């Protein structure tokens, strides 16, 4: 049977998460032809189910140039994708539970000074005054007033819709199950439905990007992880900031409708390669920490828990940049639990790489080379 449609374009993209979709949008804004294949619905995986933290604070310094670039994209979100996606610069407050944590936050502030994050350390009386709802464990924290939160369910699909409006051809429910390179161009095939030929290929397949890299001789130690998430019924509004904890643990934010969204506290369980849920013990740990941090939550109800499937690399940095084996191939995956904020910038970087062969944002730390030792 040859009902298969064949398309020729400039750039083919695998994966319609926030990274692939924003790359598609950026490419179209440069006038470059794009075909994007998403095996499910755009923005329905990690990018659509994450916690929604839009934060720069706490990122490794190597990510801050990218995060700053993303910060400027988030600022123009509505013009860019046609919706505000409930994006709010509500402030992100990283809590210290000990003096050592506090010292660590201070060190981070000093180290990140060049990036103008505007971090403000708060402790003691000012802490109690500004956040009377905080439990006794908190001794202080660091506020990044311009960091914030957004609704991933709305933002990530909107990037794909915006790309489509800008002329990208987007095929949802089209899984790429075959990729090849004939020395000049890439060929992608989705079952008997579609074949795409393009001189450039973006591997933006999230947690599932490993096999595509391997196909081109670039094996990466990519692993799937499943952060546990939960949401409460609507509560009287009491907290503007999105909260995190120094040293990890849980994070939570309150949305305008009053629901508290919480994450962390351990891992979810994978149901299969594609789906995951919050693990029982993770929910228990999340709950215990939440009450400790915000005692008023004690009697609030969880109405839902969930998880997602995210790609992690051992050093918790993404792979972002050109392939070392195949000209025209660019990777953007493995954001290790923190790709929502920087996703739109990663997309722009990928578009620049396609057009110019280089990016104006430093991305050396994210090279795939770090996993493929150069032969002697």
């Amino acid at each position, binding site marked *: 049977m040859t009902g298969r449609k064949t398309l020729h374009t400039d750039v083919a993209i695998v994966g319609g998460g926030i990274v692939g979709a924003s790359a598609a949008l950026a490419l179209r804004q440069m006038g470059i032809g794009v075909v994007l294949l998403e095996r499910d619905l755009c923005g329905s995986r990690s990018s659509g189910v994450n916690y929604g933290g839009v934060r720069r604070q706490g990122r490794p310094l190597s990510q801050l140039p990218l995060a700053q670039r993303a910060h400027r994209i988030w600022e123009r979100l509505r013009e860019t994708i046609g919706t505000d996606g409930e994006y709010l610069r509500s402030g992100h407050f990283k809590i210290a539970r000990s003096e050592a944590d506090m010292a660590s936050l201070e060190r981070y502030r000093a180290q990140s000074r060049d990036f103008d994050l505007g971090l403000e350390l708060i402790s003691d009386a000012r802490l109690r005054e500004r956040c009377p709802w905080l439990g006794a464990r908190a001794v202080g924290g660091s506020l990044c007033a311009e960091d914030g939160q957004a609704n991933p369910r709305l933002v990530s699909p909107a990037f794909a819709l915006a790309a489509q409006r800008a002329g990208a051809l987007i095929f949802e429910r089209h899984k790429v199950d075959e990729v090849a390179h004939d020395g000049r161009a890439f060929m992608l095939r989705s079952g008997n439905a579609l074949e795409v030929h393009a001189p450039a290929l973006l591997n933006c397949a999230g947690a599932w990007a490993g096999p595509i890299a391997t196909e081109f001789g670039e094996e990466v130690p990519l692993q799937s992880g499943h952060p546990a998430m939960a949401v409460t*019924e609507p509560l009287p509004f009491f907290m503007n900031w999105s909260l995190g904890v120094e040293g990890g643990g849980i994070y939570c934010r309150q949305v305008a409708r009053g629901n508290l969204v919480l994450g962390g506290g351990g891992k979810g369980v994978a149901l299969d390669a594609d789906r995951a849920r919050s693990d029982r013990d993770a929910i228990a740990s999340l709950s*215990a920490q939440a009450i400790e941090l915000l005692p008023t939550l004690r009697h*609030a*109800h969880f109405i839902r*828990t969930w998880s997602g499937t995210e790609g992690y690399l051992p050093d918790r940095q993404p792979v972002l940049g050109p392939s070392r084996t195949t000209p025209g191939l660019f990777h953007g995956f493995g954001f290790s639990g923190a790709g929502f904020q920087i996703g739109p910038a990663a997309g722009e970087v990928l578009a620049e790489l396609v057009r110019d062969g280089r990016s104006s944002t430093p991305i050396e730390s994210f090279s795939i080379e770090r996993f493929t030792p150069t032969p002697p």
Partner: protein
Amino acid sequence: MTAAAGEIRPVIVGAGPAGVRAAQALVAHGLQPVVIDEASRAGGQIYRRPPASLSQRSTQTLYGLEARRAVALHIAFDALRERIDYRPDSLVWSAQGGRLDVLHGPTRGTDSVPYGQLIVATGATDRVLPVPGWTLPGVYTLGGAQVALKFQGCAIGRRVVFMGTGPLLYLVAYQYAKAGVDVAAVLDTARLANQIAAAPAMLAQPAVFAKGVYYVGWLRAHGVALHSGVRPLRVLGDEAQGRVTGVAWQDGNEERTLACDAVGFGYALRSETQLADLLGCRFEFAPLHRAHLPVRDAAGRSSVKGVYLAGDGAGIMGADAAEWAGERAALALLADQGVAVDTARTAALERRLHKLGGFREGLERAFPLPPDWAAHAPDELVVCRCENVTAGTLRQTVSVNGADEMNRLKALSRVGMGRCQGRMCGVAAAEILAHATGLPLQQVGRLRGQAPIKPIPIHLAATPSLEGAGE
């Protein structure tokens, strides 16, 4: 008698007709199941028992024509009490890795109950297709109206209109009228012609059919106005006082209104499938039920080894079928464990269940969901009351954002994202999505289940004891 050390007992969730008969069959073969039920007394929805403090009302008053069966089920259950590990007031809120997470209401304690075999008999709740004004105080679902009467011994109003469709419509109206409440009218969206055409199929269950005919006849004889083929237009309300003052409906070309102070409405039942979903059971669209349901074989085996499905929770078949299916599932569980069971009995149960399928088809034909409900639902109609999502918003989410599947519709519009997690609004949202996209209902999919099955206080989620999880 206690379970042998190290033995993991089979668990039954739900102590309605299906769960009780399943427990009985297991006990008869020497097992000692755990029976977990959210209600405080066994009996399920139909044979729900009022709290002991209210039980002076006779079973005849409580269950009417069902009294004999109700008593039989209660007696059967009471006889089991010493030989099962019965946990009333206990909500199963999650399931994972061979363990159920259980919240015990009165003590606010949490357990994690292990199982090797599990019978899911979680029953059903009302199938709701809303009408403008349904959020006014004084509007109840049919099931809610019935529970108020059976369980709390009170009526939802003094002058009540019942509307919607399905056998429960006439039954509840009858029960209310019998209890002395002024039933102003019964408004059925199905046509008389539907019922006449379906009569032959329904005669597969002559006794049940006769009961239905009896209720209708009784209501008519007692002067209750019965209108069929209607389209409910809205529940009228006093804006200032925010309560029901009447209903408006379309009868042919005529718009009619009627004064009342309460409304009971509903369109038969929908299966409570979340536990089966959390357990990983495979679902398929069941055209007869207009719903995605967990698949099972004729004996009640689900697609997951060790998990059995029985009763309305796996497809609405009514109370008698629930009893047979409960027993059948238990026998399947036993046989799968290598216990010898009476094969003549299993064959008889399967035959009865199969035969009932024909009756069910008849019922669906007699009381179909109004096929044009979605087409006529006005844009301002609130479909999801937890999140205040209107039909118009849903349609816009289709036309502007291209949603063509339930989970995407939920993600973009918030329908089903509130406390009920779609248990109430899911049916209506799916109908609107199918209509707005022009896709068959089957194709718009179903909301994915996630724990908790019902909201759970955070401090209780924080402390799952590992009771029975093996020292």
